[in-house]
């Protein structure tokens, strides 16, 4: 089955990191900077910083604009296309083909993936928020699922550490439940967003509007950020940034890891499972299928960091089946694959704003405003109809020529055309991102009947949003509309387009951290209870979801776990 054509020494490292996305990039950087010979296994192709073929393209550089032929979508991207924005000519090369990487759905689940060096750190939304003790104590307070084994104080220094290197632009607001970070200068709000901010401050106790906290260099510091450049407001981030202005593994962590001389990045390395040492009960290494040749390899190390994405890491654990662990490594609690979460969204309100006709903006700001959570923070904001809360992300802009389709008083002809060359009215939309509770029956499991292009089994998702999320959504729409109304917006419209797990691209849980090996998969250092030299530091580790975009938390958890792992190695504890 798996064998080595090379001697064992040649395939032995101090550490193996599986995945090179947000978490894997951080693990690679931290471990190699601490002197560990680190092998980074990336299942897809290599993408070096700057290898972004579409970064400078304009819409007219494609014969049909950004459109992709429907036959191609149907054949290869039926599920990846569910976002409505991922399968475009300038982006689709960073998304997987569903035809090669299938998965099965008991209930609709939208799994968006990018298999290449950098993973989804190349295409992520870049919004970066800290969790707080409101989140870390939530399960305990509500008496659901299990308590997080950590508190904000455990993670705060690591948030600071991750923010400093990644470069997070934002405005300090002094909120206890959305702690301030070590921010680079904030991006500017536009005229109408500033009006809404003023109105919310005047009319709503406990609510505020701030500029989005985003992983963009607004003021690069060469001593920290190296050759990464300042954000140019091109808003083509999902294609890869030639300036390296937003944080990605490709622009930031992988080059830092490479600079140490301690990292080996091996692309086309699909991890099959972890090699367990029967005698010690620890991991000895990993089994890999070469994505190009199909050859099988084994690699060995003292520690393994699983950073393959929430469901990717859980798959590897599940596929690590031994006599003692028929359901996989980490399955002893019965929680592996359970408590799958994502944020629910696509609900909110929008409206038009009369005024500021003589004002405009310059640049395509790759960021919007953020309205932090204001529900269930304390007795005063407590709801009787649901627990937890939501935040809003939104933006104002002036309409462009597409308003000519049906929003103009003028119909077709010369005046109509000339009017469309001028910007239209201001409009503003805000979209809620709501917390999803950890439900034991929202789960994922291995499917041996459907194989992927490498012959590996695949995953089946069986998860849904439930009553608490549905009750919250009503409030998400109504609260958005009331803020717009108070600010004098016109033609206010509430919307709820429906939301299915996965589409938030914040899938998390399935190998949760906890305080007890009987009810959780990982301990407070992200170690698998059943194999302490295996760390899982990506979204799989999340015990609850918060309503904040989670990637910054993965960065902080990864850096913290890497620090702990190296110290434990030094103490000969691993």
């Amino acid at each position: 089955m798996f064998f080595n054509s090379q001697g064992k020494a040649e395939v032995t490292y101090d550490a193996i990191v599986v995945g090179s996305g947000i978490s894997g990039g951080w693990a690679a950087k931290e471990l190699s900077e601490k002197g560990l010979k680190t092998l980074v296994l990336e299942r897809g192709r290599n993408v070096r910083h700057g290898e972004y073929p579409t970064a400078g393209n304009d819409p007219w550089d494609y014969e049909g604009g950004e459109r992709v032929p429907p036959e191609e979508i149907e054949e290869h991207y039926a599920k990846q296309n569910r976002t409505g924005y991922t399968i475009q000519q300038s982006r689709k090369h960073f998304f997987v083909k569903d035809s090669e990487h299938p998965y099965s759905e008991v209930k609709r689940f939208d799994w968006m993936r990018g298999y290449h060096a950098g993973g989804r750190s190349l295409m992520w939304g870049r919004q970066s928020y800290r969790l707080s003790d409101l989140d870390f104590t939530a399960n305990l307070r509500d008496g659901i699922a299990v308590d997080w084994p950590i508190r904000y104080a455990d993670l705060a220094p690591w948030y600071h550490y991750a923010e400093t290197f990644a470069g997070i632009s934002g405005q300090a607001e002094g909120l206890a439940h959305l702690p301030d970070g070590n921010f680079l200068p904030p991006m500017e709000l536009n005229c109408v967003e500033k009006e809404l901010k003023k109105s919310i401050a005047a009319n709503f106790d406990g609510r505020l509007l701030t500029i989005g906290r985003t992983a963009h260099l607004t003021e690069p510091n060469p001593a920290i950020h190296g050759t990464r450049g300042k954000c140019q407001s091109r808003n083509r981030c999902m294609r890869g940034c030639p300036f390296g202005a937003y944080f990605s593994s490709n622009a930031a962590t992988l080059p830092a890891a490479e600079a140490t001389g301690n990292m080996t990045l091996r692309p086309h390395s699909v991890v099959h499972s972890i090699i367990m040492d029967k005698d010690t009960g620890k991991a000895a290494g990993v089994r890999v299928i070469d994505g190009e040749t199909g050859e099988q390899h084994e690699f060995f190390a003292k520690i393994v960091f699983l950073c393959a994405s929430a469901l990717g890491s859980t798959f590897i654990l599940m596929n690590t089946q031994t006599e003692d662990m028929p359901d996989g490594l980490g399955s002893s609690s019965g929680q592996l694959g359970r408590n799958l979460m994502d944020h629910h969204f696509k609900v909110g309100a929008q409206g038009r704003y009369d005024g500021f006709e003589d004002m405009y903006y310059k640049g395509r700001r790759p960021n919007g405003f953020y309205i932090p959570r204001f529900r269930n923070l304390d007795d005063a904001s407590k709801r009787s109809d649901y627990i937890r809360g939501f935040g809003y992300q939104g933006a104002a802009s002036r309409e462009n020529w597409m308003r000519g389709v049906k929003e103009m008083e003028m119909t077709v002809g010369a005046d109509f055309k000339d009017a469309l060359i001028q910007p239209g009215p201001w409009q503003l939309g805000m979209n809620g991102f709501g917390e999803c509770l950890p439900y034991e029956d929202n789960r994922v499991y291995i499917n041996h009947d459907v194989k992927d292009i490498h012959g590996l089994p695949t995953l089946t998702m069986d998860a849904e949003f439930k009553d608490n999320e549905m009750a919250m959504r009503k409030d998400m729409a109504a609260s958005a509309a009331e803020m717009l109304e108070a600010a004098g917006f016109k033609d206010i419209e509430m919307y709820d387009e429906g939301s299915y797990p996965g589409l938030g691209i914040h899938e998390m849980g399935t190998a949760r951290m906890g305080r007890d090996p009987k009810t959780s998969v990982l301990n407070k250092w992200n170690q698998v209870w059943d194999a302490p030299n295996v760390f899982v530091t990506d979204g799989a580790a999340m015990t609850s979801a918060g309503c904040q975009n989670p990637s910054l938390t993965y960065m902080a958890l990864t850096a913290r776990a890497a620090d702990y792992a190296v110290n434990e190695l030094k103490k000969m504890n691993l």
Partner: protein
Amino acid sequence: MDRRAILKYTAYVTGYAITAPLTSAFLSGCKAEPTAPDYVPVYFSEVTYQNLVAVVDTMLPATSTPGAVEIGVPAFMDLVVGKYTEEEDRLKMMNGFESWLTTVQNNAGNPYHALPAEEQLKLLNALDQEAIATAESLEGKILSEDEMKALQPWWLDMKALAINGYFASEKIGTEVLAYDPVPGPYQGCIPLSNVGKTWSL
């Protein structure tokens, strides 16, 4: 963040004065019959394409800025409808367009492309207003995205494609609209007079 286009049709008068006069071509009765185009349509039949060219010319004519026909919008529409549109949407648009062309011909005694300019404008205005009224009547109805898409009048799909083809073309995008491929730091609140036109990107 994907935001649904605002469905509201608003009788909102924008704050800037529209000074472009109605072009005299529209008042002079008859327009020259478009010469046989060099472009051979791939998806549209030749006769339907000829009418498409005329419709696009009525909708987005040459003014102080180039017209949609000279920008190549009809050929772009032919390509997109044939190669980049789902069959269901394509059939809806084509059936709608051809049946409207037939009605026009039956009522006027001539195909659309052979009618005087002011009559073309009148016919297209009527079609446009009717389509917008239909779209407005759908608002507030609880419909799925698919249902909403199916009920949206075919003309608005076609109109949207023409508008998109025109404004997202290289010539209009770089020479007519405000083009700024690398803007630098975002400025959120500046006088429109500093920019003068809609940003093209």
